């Protein structure tokens, strides 16, 4: 059972209670969702600080809009859509800020110390230098699909439902992402570089 299936099973009973006005159920629901939402946001934004903001925004939206969830899809599918929308809005805000920032101001937008510490968490293992950068460089849709299927063990059919995407399109994105990342992994090995190197 994937993390998402486990989450869905755990929070589904809370959704109805929260919709009926049970504040304790609502808090428990938000607590249950926060780690998964943050994890998705990290993949969608490729930035720990943005992921924090997106996760916080999703909790607020969940608080306000839970009444609009009509159970026509799985709760986690709906929640993932809310997270994607929040990540999209965050990206637009960031783009606007960066567009308007002057050269001097841009310097202030460089990673702060606390952000640098958190990026270090990633860089502490060799994987950060190697695969994390490959992962971050993937086109967003490929990164999203690769993350959900290969890193979070979701079934492709589940992912196609979550992303509202045709299963064959999901598979195409997945194979392209795998090919890009794996080629680059193998290029790094001297004995394999000749075969996979560009």
């Amino acid at each position, binding site marked *: 059972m994937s993390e998402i299936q486990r989450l869905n099973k755990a929070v589904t009973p809370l959704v109805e209670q929260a919709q009926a006005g049970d504040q304790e159920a609502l*808090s428990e629901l*938000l*607590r249950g969702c*926060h*780690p998964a939402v*943050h*994890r998705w946001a*990290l*993949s969608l934004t490729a930035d*720990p*600080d943005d*992921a*924090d903001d997106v*996760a*916080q925004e999703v*909790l*607020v939206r*969940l*608080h*306000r809009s839970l009444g609009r969830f009509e159970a026509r899809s799985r709760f986690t599918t709906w929640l993932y859509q809310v997270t994607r929308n929040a990540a999209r809005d965050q990206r637009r805000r960031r783009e606007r800020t960066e567009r308007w920032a002057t050269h001097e101001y841009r310097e202030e937008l460089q990673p702060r110390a*606390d952000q640098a510490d*958190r990026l270090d*968490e*990633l860089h502490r*293992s*060799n*994987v*950060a230098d*190697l*695969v*994390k950068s490959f*992962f971050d460089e993937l086109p967003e849709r490929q990164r999203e699909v690769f*993350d959900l299927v*290969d*890193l*979070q063990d979701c079934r492709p059919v589940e992912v196609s439902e979550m992303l509202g995407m045709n299963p064959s399109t999901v598979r195409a994105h997945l*194979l392209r992402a*795998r*090919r890009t*990342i*794996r*080629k680059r*992994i*193998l290029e790094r*090995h001297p004995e*394999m570089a000749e*075969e996979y190197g560009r």
Partner: protein
Amino acid sequence: MNCTEARELLLEAELAELGGEGESELARHVRDCAQCRAMAREIVAQERALAQALATVRPAVSTQAAVARAADAAGARVVPLRPRWKRRWAALVPAALAATVAGILLTSNGTSPADVSWGGEAPVTAAVPVVDAADSKTFVVFNTDNPDIVVVWFY
């Protein structure tokens, strides 16, 4: 299957196959060929490490604090006055227009008020047709001088 074919397939295969699981040609080749097995293991190891690295990035704010903030933020939302006014006017304008048109028709044709039927109520004259409208629709029926023609205005 030779190594060249196997290495091409390694780039897109499922992780289980890379681990030599199952009876596919690739899985069998991975089990039998040490070099291809080394490549497959490298891919699996790096992808697992990536998954682990992403999982170790925790939110800067604890879940407890994030939930409390969300509750505050959701409660603090004030509905702006302007949209509410807009909505109220949006409902009033068609009704006012309907009343005006009805007034003009009544005055110009000398029609008695009994000839006008307002939506949702029983017809006041036998000549008014039965209008089949959804509950959410409001309508006004105007009789004309021609008994075969009535005007039904949905708004």
